[in-house]
């Protein structure tokens, strides 16, 4: 009944606010029962067709039209804002753990605030603030981390005591609370009306909106969108935007060339009550009790309360299904635990009368972040969906970023964490999605400690050595579906249960990883790095070299057998990818990129390589097992196994050679380790993997060889100031900004992507600098550990955030990496960052509200390097040359 009421209310307002529209919408409604053809015909063509009239679709339409793209058609299968958006709880909250999500929510809040004034449509916007409660110390730490981040964004936010909380919301029971976070500017809206307001503004700007029009599929020719087929005819278009919410997956799969949009719907319940005897004031803050898994907002004098239960009910696994839609009813038994949590938080509500339990499906994604961006296979096919029940909070900002992406070629901020291309076909299995969303939905409320891993959808991609490593005590994490070793638990020593390692403090694997690091430094370790993305580019003539010279910033015209570290840059000089490329022959190259680049890098190259049948690009990731031999004795192990001299004189750093190891021939050996330590990576055709591994381990015994995992690798690379793409580097960071000018050959004689931008930076200086921080007064045993995303302060003023951190077992200190900006004191504008600016400052890192002194360095400690290198190149991010 409440749903109907909301609907009626919005109808009335819709018509009143939008006289231009009344005729069309009312006539459509009156004819809908007799199923006659709608009176308004679809246009035959448009620049952009958006599918979906919910908050995301209307937001994209609004922003596109604002940016000057007016030839836009928005299609909605039912009525505007009638799907998930209508049922949405309407909470706009910036208290989000991921930086880009905070930015989107912040923008949404500002947008909705002025929307009523802009459009005349009442949006119900009320600035109520929000209270996030902590029942445990760990929860409070996670809130403090968010508070630190909000504060440096200029969003008011404070950590308060339970007593202060009860002053803000008198109904809260505080006996089990340890603290709370108050964000005074968070707001409430009537979500359907926000969507209608956005639609109103968009249509005034020229966007055509057609309700009751279903898209059956999108047509793609030669990798480009050409049009959409609807139940009311075809529209030719250059761009298509899939904003179909929980139907986005199906719509993506409906065309001939499937677009994989990994999301899955779950039922979501919330409760509406009658007003209290003394109706609740509409200014009362929204309460989020993550430990109780619930949220509570005021609603028409009563409350609206929902939550994220531990045992979610996924639905539409087999696609849209009329039976399941009809069965979407109130399930009180399922809601029981949340009701208990509500009455525990607000015992005074016992006598409050129930109005309705609303069942409103929401779509969730495999990693709890929304999905945005262009399809890797169909150009012009954009997606914005999978809002993980935060559609209203993100809708405005996400719509803006996507519109910028379409209009300008890239959004104004780094949206890689949300990019559709972080997923591939492998996350598209319905079984995987069903299992994963059942884990993800409860996670919305679970505590997010550093280095947590998903438990479902695992063991999908594994190295052939998986069982061997597992039997030796490997503990696993997952990246892009691939199982990677974190560390090896030594025999006889078992870690306490998983919960114990869930800590913001020193983790229980500290000594284990320490031993692995020590072995890398003093003897030799093996790390299975098979997950890295591996491409081969070859041609009959010089096409491969020419193309790569254009697409990569370093000079790839090196002698055969050389390995080059280089960025794959965009026009602004930012890193689209950071990779190592080995020249296998005159005309073929072997390229190694981070694991999660498999889809993105492929699409980037495919879209930019000339359409030439003599030039081939092949994904050979699955063909090779990669073993990284790290340590001073790696050279001894390898030379004994190959009967070939492996010393620096014969095999200098950054070389690549095919050789035999044990009985196996054709092993690609490269003298890189991705850590700055001496050693080699062996790229082994998978059928030889077990043999080579066994040989290496047997031969290595006398040199003290042992297995190691990624945690050791991380500690090693961070103490050496190595930046990793995806963590430290992204499309908004350039080689100049992270001390990698030596990997850019501005004078290589061939124009390359990003060259102009880099030249300008070289002349005018950079606006941020990648810097290494050594924590000074940080007690590893007692203090909170840094993770990433911690604010950096210079002389007491905010200058940037960390991007990664690790404990350096060599320095016996924590090392954080991050970017330092120079914001103008008055205007906040970014200014040039010079070496002096970095060096002449007192730095502090803020970990959950506590500041630690840090020493800034632009170059790694030279004492950490003992390796002999090839003269003209170093495997470093710094300028450390001999």
């Amino acid at each position, binding site marked *: 009944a409440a749903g109907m009421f909301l609907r009626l209310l919005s109808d009335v307002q819709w018509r009143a606010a939008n006289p231009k529209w009344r005729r069309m919408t009312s006539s459509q409604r009156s004819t809908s029962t007799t199923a006659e053809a709608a009176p308004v015909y679809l246009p035959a063509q448009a620049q952009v067709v958006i599918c979906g009239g919910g908050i995301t679709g209307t937001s994209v339409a609004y922003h596109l039209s604002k940016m000057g793209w007016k030839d836009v058609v928005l299609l909605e299968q039912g009525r505007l804002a009638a799907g998930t958006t209508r049922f949405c709880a309407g909470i706009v909250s910036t208290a989000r753990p991921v930086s880009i999500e905070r930015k989107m929510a912040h923008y949404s809040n500002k947008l909705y605030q002025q929307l009523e004034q802009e459009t005349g449509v009442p949006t119900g916007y009320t600035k109520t603030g929000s209270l996030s409660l902590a029942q445990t110390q760990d929860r409070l730490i996670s809130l403090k981390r968010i508070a630190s981040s909000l504060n440096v964004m200029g969003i008011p936010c404070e950590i308060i005591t339970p007593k202060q909380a009860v002053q803000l919301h008198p109904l809260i029971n505080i006996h089990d609370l340890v603290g709370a976070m108050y964000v005074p500017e968070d707001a409430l809206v009537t979500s359907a009306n926000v969507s209608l307001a956005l639609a109103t503004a968009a249509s005034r700007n020229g966007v055509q909106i057609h309700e009751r029009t279903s898209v059956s599929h999108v047509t793609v020719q030669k990798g480009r969108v050409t049009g959409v087929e609807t139940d009311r005819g075809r529209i030719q278009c250059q761009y298509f935007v899939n904003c179909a919410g929980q139907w986005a997956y199906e719509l993506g799969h409906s065309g001939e060339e499937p677009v994989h949009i990994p999301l899955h719907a779950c039922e979501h319940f919330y*409760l509406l*009550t009658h007003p209290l005897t003394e109706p609740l004031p509409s200014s009362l803050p929204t309460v989020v009790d993550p430990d109780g898994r619930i949220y509570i907002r005021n609603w028409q004098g009563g409350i609206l309360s929902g939550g994220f239960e531990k045992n979610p009910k996924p639905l539409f696994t087999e696609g849209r299904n009329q039976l399941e839609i009809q069965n979407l*009813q*109130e*399930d*009180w*038994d399922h*809601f*029981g635990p949340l*009701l*208990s949590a*509500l*009455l525990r938080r607000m015992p005074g*509500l*016992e*006598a*409050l*009368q*129930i109005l*309705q*339990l609303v069942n409103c499906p929401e779509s969730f994604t495999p990693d709890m972040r929304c999905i945005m961006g262009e399809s890797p296979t169909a150009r012009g096919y954009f997606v914005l969906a999978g809002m993980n029940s935060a559609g209203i909070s993100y809708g405005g900002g996400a719509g803006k970023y996507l519109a910028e992406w379409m209009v300008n070629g890239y959004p104004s901020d780094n949206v890689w964490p949300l990019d559709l291309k972080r997923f591939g076909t492998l996350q598209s299995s319905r079984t995987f999605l069903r299992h994963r969303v059942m884990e993800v939905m409860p996670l919305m409320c679970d505590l997010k400690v550093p280095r947590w891993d998903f438990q479902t959808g695992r063991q999908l991609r594994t190295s052939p050595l998986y069982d061997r490593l597992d039997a030796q005590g490997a503990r696993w994490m997952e990246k892009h579906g691939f199982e990677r070793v974190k560390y090896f638990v030594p025999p006889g020593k078992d870690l306490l249960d998983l919960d114990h390692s869930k800590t913001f403090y020193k983790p229980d694997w500290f000594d284990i990883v320490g031993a692995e690091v020590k072995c890398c430094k003093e003897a030799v370790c093996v790390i299975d790095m098979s997950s890295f993305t591996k491409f081969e580019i070859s041609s009959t003539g010089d096409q491969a070299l020419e193309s790569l010279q254009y697409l990569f910033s370093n000079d790839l015209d090196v002698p055969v057998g050389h390995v080059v570290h280089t960025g794959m840059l965009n026009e602004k000089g930012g890193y689209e990818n950071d990779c190592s490329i080995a020249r296998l022959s005159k005309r073929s190259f072997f390229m190694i990129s981070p694991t999660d680049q498999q889809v993105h890098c492929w699409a980037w190259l495919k879209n930019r390589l000339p359409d030439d049948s003599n030039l081939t690009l092949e994904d050979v990731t699955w063909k090779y097992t990669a073993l990284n031999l790290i340590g001073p004795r790696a050279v001894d192990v390898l030379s004994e196994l190959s009967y070939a001299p492996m010393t620096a004189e014969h095999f200098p750093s950054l070389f690549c050679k095919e050789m035999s190891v044990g009985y196996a021939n054709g092993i690609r050996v490269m003298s890189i380790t991705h850590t700055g330590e001496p050693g080699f990576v062996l790229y082994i055709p998978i059928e030889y993997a077990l043999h080579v591994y066994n040989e290496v381990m047997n031969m290595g015994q006398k040199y003290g060889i042992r297995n190691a995992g990624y945690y050791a690798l991380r500690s090693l690379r961070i103490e050496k100031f190595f930046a990793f793409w995806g963590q430290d580097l992204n499309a908004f960071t350039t080689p100049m900004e992270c001390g990698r000018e030596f990997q850019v050959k501005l004078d290589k004689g061939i124009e390359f992507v990003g060259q102009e931008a880099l030249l300008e930076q070289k002349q005018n200086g950079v606006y941020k600098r990648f810097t290494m921080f050594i924590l000074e007064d940080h007690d590893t045993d007692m203090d909170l550990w840094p993770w990433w995303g911690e604010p950096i302060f210079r002389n007491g003023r905010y200058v940037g955030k960390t991007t990664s951190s690790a404990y350096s077992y060599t320095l016996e200190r924590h090392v954080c990496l991050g970017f330092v900006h120079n914001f103008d004191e008055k205007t906040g504008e970014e200014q040039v960052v010079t070496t002096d600016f970095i060096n002449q400052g007192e730095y502090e890192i803020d970990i959950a509200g506590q500041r630690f002194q840090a020493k800034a360095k632009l170059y790694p400690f030279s004492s950490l390097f003992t390796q002999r290198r090839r003269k003209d190149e170093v495997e470093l991010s710094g300028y450390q040359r001999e």
Partner: protein
Amino acid sequence: FYLTPPQVNSILKANEYSFKVPEFDGKNISSVLGFDSNQLPANAPIEDRRSAATCLQTRGMLLGVFDGHAGCACAQAVSERLFYYIAVSLLPHETLLEIENAVESGRALLPILQWHKHPNDYFSKEASKLYFNSLRTYWQELIDLNSGETTDVREALINAFKRLDNDISLEAQVGDPNSFLNYLVLRVAFSGATACVAHVDGVDLHIANTGDSRAMLGVQEEDGSWSAVNLSYDHNAQNEHEVERVKMEHPKSEEKNLVKQDRLLGLLMPFRAFGDVKFKWSIELQKRVIESGPDQLNDNEYTKFIPPNYFTPPYLTAEPEVIHHKLRPQDKFLVLATDGLWETMHRQDVARIVGEYLTGVHHQQPIAVGGYKVTLGQMHGLLTERRARISSVFEDQNAATHLIRHAVGNNEFGTVDHERLSKMLSLPEELARMYRDDITIIVVQFNSHVI
């Protein structure tokens, strides 16, 4: 003192067993999905037995419960042997020949049955040779008799029951040079057992029943509710036809002595049974066998005691009554259980409890607030109570265990009362038999997809 819920569970679950028919290609093509079985002793040791096996040379599955009396020897023997007799009765002539030739030439035997046994369900090793020889004699006779006709399941079941009872009787008369075996065969013959056996082959379900155990079909009606259909008749004094039958088989002069206090000759509750030679042999034969038997037998007052008014034996038969039923899609499960269950629960309740358990739905109407005035507090109380009621469902992974929990622990409202359950299970051995009988249950779940 009370047993804690985990203690109660460990008692209830000690004998539970589940079998799932293996799937091929992700599909189960058998009409049986699997079965759950369990037993709860009241006697020490328990006198009930159960068996389940898949016929390997013919199609079909055999399941049975056996309620022993005057000791467990007969029930044990029948639980080990009866399915072999049935399987052999069902075998075509060529297979019998093949088996006989294999035995003759010392080759490996075709396996006849695949047993599905709980570890506590034992086979007596010592008697296996003896049992085998009797069985072999049976199939040799079947080979000689070769009728050339296809085997009728009803006939096979009746023949197998009668033949086994006959062999039990003969073995006791002949005796065995081994003194242990000699005592064993006598104990088997002088104790008794009822048997209720199901043979499922596709949609053909046959129930062969001897005695007062019972087979019941669980049927789901169109509205989702559950009803029970009996697939066996109890052979006891409550069954008029059975009383009539017994009277027909004996002279008019004995009529008033045949059934006294609802018992056969005033002694025996079931009117049909295996063993119990005291009700089958002539007085002379009984005396001869007992006198020549071992001392333990002589010292046993029960065996020596001749029933009163014993003039025209046999008074008892092991011949089963066979009911054939063609399975329908609405037939969801079959419950085979000894009288220990049926004494405490009505079949309608059994059908409902098992049905709701198997479908995973506690047939409670979902709550709808509708136009009613319900407060959050009231709703909370209601949900808490429902959860408590449902929780007993989730404690069990086995339908038979779930049924036993209800049979023993149900209060007057039809819900499991932990206090009562705890009391019933903590009764001392000597008292237990006064409050309840041994309970043995097999719940067979049918595969609606192929029916």
